[in-house]
């Protein structure tokens, strides 16, 4: 999901770069104490670790693999500011060394891949943790919620940037709904992978998970299967809810392009043939409000599904003990 040069106007790219620079500056200030003893190699190796994890294929659904985006994972494991910093560096190296993502778009990519996912992921994670007991299953639930929220949040930020200065005149309402739908799906994959990784970390080295410092004293145990159960249920629900959007292709922007493009080659009306036509001609019409409502509804439904899943897992767990 790396934005290349020329996708957004220069002004919007510059604005996104300023926002990213602000985020990185805040992160540098917050992590100054951490770097007082020159622990830079450690951060560099975590950046390398995140980069490599992003390249691995995770089996998310049978026959489908997904890539980790990693913003929420980095924030939960390293803390929000260190996570933001480390993923920002990953994005910068991808642009400068691997030509992945444009140079002018570097600020946009840092904003969309590092700053927003890290901050949104962390805040949702903390919000869920603050209202749940300090127990492993709840930490993993919070992890899943944070990772899930981080992806559509970033997708919506992209839509806002595109609305402000996007090239090519893709219809905004359709773009927003398609991006939201596809990225909710990707977010569920992201949540599954992040929960699996954090579950593993809690089993090996719980002390390394910044977001679960209060659990570290508990010591290692084999309780992490609960995370896997949770992941499996979430995946099942995900398949039922968003199957129409399921694609072998894990990259959301490509999927959006395909969804928008495949059914829209009809001559008369591109929109009428699109799979999103129903949404666009909803009673509210294609306005910012309806899109925002759709987004809100999607998030509420997702949170509801997660609450039910959590409740089911808790119930099963209680009955087994």
């Amino acid at each position: 999901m790396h934005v290349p040069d020329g996708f957004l106007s220069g002004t919007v790219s510059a604005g996104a770069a300023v926002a990213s620079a602000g985020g990185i500056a805040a992160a540098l200030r917050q992590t100054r104490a951490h770097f007082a003893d020159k622990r830079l190699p450690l951060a560099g190796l975590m950046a390398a670790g995140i980069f490599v994890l992003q390249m691995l294929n995770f089996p998310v659904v049978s026959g489908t693999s997904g890539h980790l985006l990693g913003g929420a994972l980095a924030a939960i494991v390293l803390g929000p500011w260190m996570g933001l910093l480390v993923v920002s560096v990953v994005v910068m190296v991808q642009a400068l060394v691997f030509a992945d993502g444009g140079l002018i778009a570097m600020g946009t990519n840092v904003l969309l891949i590092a700053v927003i996912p890290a901050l949104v992921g962390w805040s949702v994670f903390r919000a869920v943790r603050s209202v749940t007991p300090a127990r492993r299953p709840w930490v993993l639930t919070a992890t899943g919620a944070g990772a899930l929220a981080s992806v559509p949040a970033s997708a919506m930020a992209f839509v806002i940037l595109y609305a402000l200065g996007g090239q090519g005149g893709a219809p905004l309402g359709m773009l927003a709904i398609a991006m939201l739908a596809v990225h909710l799906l990707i977010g569920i994959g992201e949540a599954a992978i992040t929960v699996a990784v954090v579950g593993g970390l809690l089993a090996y080295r719980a002390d390394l998970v910044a977001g679960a410092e209060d659990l570290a004293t508990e010591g290692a145990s084999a309780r992490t299967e609960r995370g896997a159960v949770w992941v499996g249920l979430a995946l099942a629900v995900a398949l039922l809810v968003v199957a129409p959007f399921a694609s072998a292709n894990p990259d959301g922007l490509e999927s959006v392009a395909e969804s928008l493009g495949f059914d829209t080659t009809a001559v008369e009306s591109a929109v009428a043939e699109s799979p999103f036509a129903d949404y666009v001609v909803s009673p509210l019409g294609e306005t910012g409000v309806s899109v925002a409502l759709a987004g809100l509804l999607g998030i509420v439904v997702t949170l509801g599904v997660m609450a039910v899943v959590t409740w089911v897992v808790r119930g099963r767990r209680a009955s087994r003990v």
Partner: protein
Amino acid sequence: MSGVHAHALTIHGHGRPYEIAPHVKVVAAFGFMVGVVATPREAFWAFAVHGAVVVGVAVAARVPATFMASRMVVEIPFVLFALFLPFVGVGPRVAVGPLALSIEGIWGAWSILARATLGTATAVLLVATTEVTEILTGMSRLRVPAAIVAIAGFMIRYLEVVFDEAARMRTAMLARGWEPKSRRSLRAAGSMAAALLVRAYERGERVHSAMLARGYDGTMPRLFPSESRPGDWSVGAAPAVLAIVVAAVARGAA
């Protein structure tokens, strides 16, 4: 699972593009792209000039065309997105054969393709002519915060080590009956990823202690001088200045 091998990114060639100080090249690459992004999409001649500049630098640096092509595949996802825009764009449509394409969408596709291609080519050329460590030196000369340069440096230095570790873990898991495609294997993959992060962390601790023991003070010693020589700025910045002038002329004409 391939493509992290940083040494394959740089061509160890000779010639003017390899000799210019790295910070000059970094500034030039960004400056050139500012010009490209600022060029109005209607100014085809301006994009022709930008393209000629990129080709000129590639020829001067003797970067093989196959190398350029293989490194530019990262652009493909957005090429696909751009190609769909004419079909979904808003506004008036124009008949092209049996299809009614959005005029705005065609302009958008052209503008994204042209600029993204120039941007990818510029980044590829920057790395092709500049050692990765030199790019870091250049960033540091340009007052990028030292912590960021240091983290990026350690990341690049240990990327292949961590990547090979991941490959070994994967091989070990496959040898023990792990099925990558099975839904049930996600948990195992998660454990592997967690183990990878723990190993990276512990390696980081060891590297940190070892470096402190050898007098690390938070900055890396410079092994090679990176002073710009006379003429570096005038030669190195020429593409950027040209691109910005072309953009200004094109905007004036539009």
